[in-house]
Each structure stands twice: as C-alpha cells, then as structure tokens.
C-alpha cells in the first residue's frame, strides 16, 4: 500500500513548511524609542503628528510625541483600537479632551479620547473632508465633496457626532479660521473666502481675495492673513497643456472691514502654502519653492531669504514655545519629524508614520 504512504507524505511536507513559515514572523516592532509615553504624563505636553499614509491604502496614522520626555509613538490609535485610522489622514483638531482626526479618503472623522487615543466615535456621511474647526459644541468640517464641484461645510454636533446641517461653499475648501463668531473658509480652487456665521449657520458673504487661497492665520493685531497659491489650469483634453497660470499672493485683511485697506504681497510664482503663525502672533511662516519662509506680521514685503532650505511635507508651530515642526518622508517608508528652533536651526528629530504632513498641539 505504497500509495497511501505517499499520500500521507504531502500533508507532512505541508505541515513542516507551514511550521517554518509561521514560526518566524518578526517581533512586533515598535519604533526604536527610549520609552513608551505614559498616558498620565500627557498634559499640554503633546504633539500630534498627522501622517497621511499612502493614498488608496488606509495606513494613515497620528504619531504622538511628548515634549518633556522626547518619547514618541508611531501609531497609538492602532495599538489601542486594533485598527488603523484610515486612508489619507488629513488633519487633527484637539477640542477639550477629544481629538478629531479627519480622514480624507475615508470620508469620515474619527473621534478619540485624549490622552489615551481610545476611539470615542466616528462622524460619517462626509465627502472628502479636510479640516475641522470647533466652536462650543459645533464642529465645522470643510469637504471637497468631489473634484470640479462646489465644496461644503458640514456642521457636526460634537455631543452626538451627527451632521446637523451642511452649508455650500466654493470649490476645494481648505483649512478654515474661526474668529469672532465667523468661520472663514478658503476655497482653494477659486479666488474666494466664504464667511459663515457660526450662530445662524448661514453664509454671510463671499469675499474675493486672490487665486488659490489655501490657509489662514490671525496675527497679534487681529488681522487675517490669507495665503493664496495661485492657480494653474490645464487643458482638460489632449495635449493637456497649461492654459493659464497665476502666481500666488499673501493678502492681509481687516476682519471688520475685509474689502478695504488690504495689503497684497505677490509671489513671483505659484505654490505658496501652509501659513502658520508664531505664539505671539508677530511672525508668519509658510512654505514656498522647497523652503520655509518667516515674515514679520508688520512687514510690507515678502522675505527674500528662506528660514529653512529643505522641502518639508508640512510645517506646524508649537503655540506654547514657537518650536517649528517639519514633516519629511516619501510615501513608501516611515517618515520623520524634524524640530527647528525659532531661528530655523534643526534641533532633533523623531520617527513617525508614513507621510507626515500636519501637526497639532495640546
């Protein structure tokens, strides 16, 4: 009965092989970090690094960095909740003891308890959401909805995580600014700022600014600065040539009289983005042509020399000490966050998730 012994050998081979294959998975690797951050130690000492992950793959993450101990953790959400945040983690807003993580290609906002990152809810029914700004128990989420269409702002009841109403805005709305009961929404595929009354949830006005407004900041004097990247239009049919291209502009306006007395500072080319402000409201930072620039909020001309000559995916400014955080990394490997002092000199760096591009602080 040789046949049957032969038959038996195959499963044995299989078992031996599978033993070999499964016995040797890598040890669950955490970042080579000096210590795991201790939750109770997290008190206004935390930096949240938003890592987009790879587009089309839900491996976006938020990394945690503790300033006092310099401890970091690549993905506390995954550790605590045994699932990833999602596809293209775009931004995170801290509201009270909660973090609102906007997942652009997941069409959702993940709500987590801080400091432990335990999942506390999900806002669904969103369409390509970008940023969340909060006023009392109201969250305002800008959404692209779809390319080529007008965007919207969904208003979320932060107690129930339900969308209560939506407000149409312009195309590709980006990071909004809340100021004095008004929400200023930059419509980055247009030249406008939509102003929404946060009490009535109605659009109050739409301001013409300059092509491609993408980020806003409020300075010490109470002015709003609007960074506009310019717009490049391509022929939608072959040969897909550039039909028009406008340079960027940095625009200062007075929220009390937004249409008069503006300061407009033109760039030589397009692409300026990621406007940030120092804790005292005296300095502005932005990224332009592969570098980071700093400008006094009292200046009337754009700076000509860069503060940091490095291409960063995104920058953030610590609202307590002014330290500058920059994200570096391609989208195939874990990224790093480099910390710079206020004069632009690198201080140190730590390992984060894939594609670090945004920062929030607590």
């Amino acid at each position, binding site marked *: 009965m040789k046949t049957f012994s032969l038959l038996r050998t195959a499963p044995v081979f299989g078992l031996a092989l599978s033993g070999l294959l499964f016995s040797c998975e890598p040890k669950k690797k955490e970042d080579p970090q000096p210590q795991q951050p201790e939750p109770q130690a997290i008190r206004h000492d935390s930096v949240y690094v938003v890592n987009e992950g790879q587009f089309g*793959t839900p491996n976006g993450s938020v990394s945690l960095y503790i300033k006092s101990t310099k401890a970091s953790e690549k993905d506390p959400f995954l550790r605590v909740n045994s699932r990833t945040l*999602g596809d293209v983690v775009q931004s995170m807003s801290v509201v009270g003891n909660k973090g609102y993580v906007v997942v652009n290609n997941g069409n959702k906002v993940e709500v987590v308890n801080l400091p432990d990152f335990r999942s506390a809810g999900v806002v669904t029914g969103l369409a390509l959401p970008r940023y969340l700004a909060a006023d009392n128990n109201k969250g305002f989420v800008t959404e692209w909805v779809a390319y080529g269409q007008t965007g919207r702002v969904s208003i979320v009841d932060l107690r129930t995580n339900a969308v209560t109403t939506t407000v149409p805005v312009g195309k590709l709305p980006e990071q909004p600014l809340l100021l004095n009961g008004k929400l200023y929404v930059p419509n980055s595929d247009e030249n406008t700022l939509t102003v929404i009354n946060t009490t009535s949830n109605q659009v109050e006005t739409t301001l013409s600014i300059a092509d491609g407004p993408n980020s806003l900041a409020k300075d010490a004097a109470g002015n709003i600065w609007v960074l506009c990247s310019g717009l490049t239009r391509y022929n939608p049919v072959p040969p897909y040539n550039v039909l028009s291209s406008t340079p960027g502009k940095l625009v200062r306006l007075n929220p009390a009289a937004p249409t008069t007395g503006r300061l407009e500072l033109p760039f030589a080319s397009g692409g300026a983005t990621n406007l940030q402000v120092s804790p005292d409201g005296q300095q502005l930072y932005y990224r332009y042509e*592969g570098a980071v620039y700093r400008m006094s909020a009292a200046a009337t001309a754009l700076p000509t020399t860069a503060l940091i000559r490095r291409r960063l995916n995104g920058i953030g400014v610590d609202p307590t000490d002014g330290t500058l955080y920059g994200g570096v990394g391609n989208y195939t490997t*874990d990224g790093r966050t480099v910390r710079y002092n206020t004069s632009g000199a690198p201080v140190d760096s730590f390992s984060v998730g894939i594609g670090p591009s945004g920062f929030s602080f607590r």
Partner: protein
Amino acid sequence: MYAFFSLARPLRQRGLLLTWLSLSLQLPAWAQAPRPAPADTARHLLPGVQVQALRPARYAAGSRFTTLDSVALAPYQAGTVADALSARSPLYVKTYGPGQLASISIRGTSARHTAVLWHGFSLNFPTLGEADFALLPVASVGRIDVQHGPAAALYGTGAMGGAVVLGAQAAPVGTQVSGMVEAGSFGHRALSFQGSQRDSSVSIRTGFMHRTAQNDFRYAAPELGGTVWRRQENAALNQSSFTQDLSLRLSAHDELLGALWITSADRQIQPAIGSANRAAREVDQSARALLGYRHQHRRGETAVRAAWFGDLIDYGDNSMRTSHSRTQNRQAQAEHTFQAAPNLGLRLGAEVQQLVADVDGYRRRIEEWRFAGFGLLRYDPTPRLRLTLNARQAALPHRRPPLAPTLGAEWELWRTAAQQLWLKGNVARSYRAPTLNERYWPTGNPNLLPETGFGYEGGLHHEARWGRIGAIGTEVDVTAYRLLVDDWVQWIPNDAGQWSPRNLRQVRTQGLEFSGQLHYAAGRYQLTGRLGYAFTQAQKVSGYAVDEDPSGVQLAYVPLHAGNVAVDQSWRGWTLTSSLALTSYRYTDASATTFLPGYALLNASAGRTFRVQRWQLTALVQGYNLTNTAYQNYAFRAMPLRSAALSLRASWY
C-alpha cells in the same frame, strides 16, 4: 518537466526520457486533449507542422525553471495566470484582490524586472514595463515556463529577476472541439470554447473564453465597536480572451505561422478596506498579432517573425476624468540557427522594435525605436556536459545598455541506470530599459540610465526512478543564487516637489530555491506530487541621501519564505487535485516596520470523466481557500473566504 529533457536531440533516446514521455502520455484525461500531444512529443512523433515555438531551455543550460503544464493548469481554466502561479508555485504574486492587478516578484525583484513572453516577444506594457498577470487568462495558454534569474541575453529588456514564457497550446492531430461552462461563488461564471484541426500540412486552432464575476464576497472590517462583516463593493469584472493560431507547412522545409491573441477586461477597482469607494474602473484591451516564417536547412534553420501588439488602458473614477493610454509595439525578429554538429548549435539574430504611445499623461505622441542583436551558442563537449554562452547587445535612444552575456553549464556528476545527478550553474548580466512612463511622463527623466543586473547561481538536480520500471519517478532541484541590481529606478520628489524617477539604488537579492516532484503510477492510478520552496532575502544595499528608504532591511512585499505543495491524482475516470500555498509575513512598507501575517491557502478539485464514443464529458468541483482563512495579500485588500465552483467540460474528437 525539467529543462534537461526538453530538446537536446541526442538525449531523446535515453531511457529516462522515454520513461518521462510514457508518463506524460498518461496524463489525467480531463486535463489534456483526448489524444495528448505534449509539445516535445508532438514534434518528435509527428514530423508534420511545428506548431510549438522553441521551448526556452535550449539555450539556458544551468538555469532553473518552474513549469506549469496542462495538468497543473487544468483546475484554473476559468482563471488567470496570476491564479495559477499563486496556487501552484512558490513565486509571489502581489494582488489587489481577486481578478485585480496582479504583479509577480521573482527572486525578490519587482514586476518590471520580469519579462513576459509570448512567441518570443515581450508583452509587458511599454508604459509600465510590466504585465498584469490578471489580464492573462489560463485558457489562452498551453503551459507556463518560468525561468528564474537574469536572462536578458535570451529575452531582452526586463529579464532581470526572471522570465515568464507563455507557451501556446498545440493542436492534436485530427479534429477536436471542446467547451466548458463554469459557475461559482460570488457571481463567477465562465464559458469557453476551443476547436482545432490538424493534419500533416495545416494546423488551425481557435479558442474563446469569457468570464464574469461580481466578487461581492464577505470580509471582516475592523470598525468602531468591533468587527463588522461587509460585502465587497466595486470589484466586479468582465473578461474575455480570443486566440487564433494557424500553421501551414508550405513544403518539406518551409512553414508559415500566424497567431492572434485578443484580451479584454473591464474591471471595477476594488477599494481598500475602509477607503472611500470612488467607483474606480479600468478597461484593459490588448491585441497581439504575429506572423512567422521558418525555413529548415540541412544544418539549421532560418526564422523571421513580425508582430504587432496594441494595448489600451482606460482608468477613471468619480474624482477624475478617464485617463487614456494607447500603445503600439511593432516588432520584428530574424534569426538563423547553424547546427554545425549534433552537439554544437549557434543562433544569431537581430530584432527591431518601434514603440508608439498616445498616453494622456505624456501630452504628446511618443515614438521610440529600439534595436538588439544576439548570439546564442550551445555546445555539449560530452554527453555529460552542456554549455551555453549567450549575449545580447541592445541599442536604446540616447543610451546603450551594457552587453548582456550569460554563461551556463550543466554537468552530469553521477549516473546509474535509474538515477542521475547534475551540477548546474550560470552567471549573467542583464538590463532593463527605462519604461515610457519613466522617460516621457511630464515629470519623467529622459536621461535615466538602464538598470543593470548581475547574477549568478548554482545548484544540483537529481532525477531517479524507483521500484518496478518507472513506477515511481522523482526529481529534486536545489538552487542558490545571488542577484545585484544597480541603478534601480525609484520615483522621488525632485527640487520642484514633483515625483520624478532617478537611478538611485543598488538592490541585492539572494536566496535558495528548492523543488521536488514525485510521480507514481500503478495500473490506472497515478499520483504526482510537487513541492516548492523559496527563501528570498531582498535588500537595498546602497543608495543616495535623497532616497529615504532604509538600507539593509527586507524589501516590501517580498516574503522571506514561500512554499507550495500540490498533489494530483487520477484513477480511471476520477481525478483529485489539491494545492497548498504558503506565504510568510511580508513587510508592507519600505521601513520594514509594518507587516502582513503569513497565510496558507488550500485549493482542491475533484472530477469525474465519462467517455461516450467520441465524446468525453467531465464534471469538476473546485474548492478555493478551503480552510476559510481570512488573509490579505496586499495590505487592506480583502480576499474571499472559502468558495467553490462547478465546471462542466465536454470535448469531441
């Protein structure tokens, strides 16, 4: 079937070969044409038309092959080459879901380091430099030979990690028609038809296959509050393939060959678990036409071939306008073989290729010419030593890749009446021409250098028969290799922040490959067992500071261990096949910090064949992922749990 037995004429008379042929002739009935005509025997026994192109082994002494013959392919007649290779070989095929984009990795290299050949021409997309194995239906190929290791001298650009040679199906003598209907889980339906006619001067064969699948299988999604079972959305597909082969014997020495292969696939693109469904959809259509002429001399032969390949890819989703890609690949080859002596053959050849691309992204029409000349030498100084020396020199626009030579040897160390042991090895240099995307994308790099590879391997091959005359036959092959790819192209952001390809790294892969095969026959019972294992270590070993991927860690999606076991049995009209594929953990990013766990997949099929006069009817039940394993091949892409299909096949001859 091992390469040693493929062609060399002096070997044909040997006892072992005859044993093998006799085994081949007893293949399970449903797997093969009623009168089976394996490629070699067909030419050996029937000096009529030569339908089959030369098998790759002739000028590849010392190379390792993995072959899926018609028996191995039979359960996958309604599937794709990706399905068959995943289940029946330790090669790693990365797939984004059932029927979705499937790219192969041989010896730790990427899909663009693998040449895929049909009738001697590469069918890799010229834009991407790689093939999607999910677009190649098994129904349209007769066998698959995978040559491991660098072989650019034989196959040209891209054959750095290996080459996949798709063999045509040979028409058996006489008239035959056959058909198949199949239905399975998740809306899988398939229909195929084949007809052929062959006599001493004409061989004609037609094949058609259509399949459709909803792929609305259930998968577990981790969500707030725990695991939620969801049905896969946006993963349906429709796929067709048509083949037409014609071979005419014009005279005792002249033969004309024509071949046509048209494939079409309309696929929804399966979104990742947890990602928004953007209703992405891709249409892929390819047409491949070939005309060849062969003239046999007293000492050798002359062959010319011309081919036209056209590829269409349309991709769109609800966030973008449909993107179009149209490419044409016009190619011609001429070669002359001198058989100076039975043990000495030299083939010299040249080829010319014109690529024409109308790709939305390029913003203009691209035309590119490529040329190559090659020489292949096979010399067997003694019956126990076989040597091949091959070289190819290509000429590309602006760049000249280095000469790509291969030196291979096989030496019979030991032989008895029933056993033989061979020592084999080869050393080769290879290259990969930059793809059209790498050169002509608006942010592409026209100055890219060709990637170059250098590899060597060595191993042992043992064959034996045991028991009463050939009742049990075994083959064991062990190969160790090392491969170095230099100027590896990587896309990284340039100074303007645009992603652009650059020659950035050196990648080293090394490993061990093992395969074993056992064949047992007793009366009308037959058993074939196959075992394969690959240990693959692939690392970037040096690069530039701008390339942030770390050195010295295993590359993403290269499993360290992969193995498979397949057992095929037949008795009277019954057949039973099973295959177990094992894949170890794979890192999912270049940092080697995140990984997918290893998994095992068990497939099996059971069939019964009835013969009624000239009709042969087969019913086949197939089961996939029988252990109901939840796994992911590519991160966050759901794969089906246990599923089944019922296949009914009929043939008349």
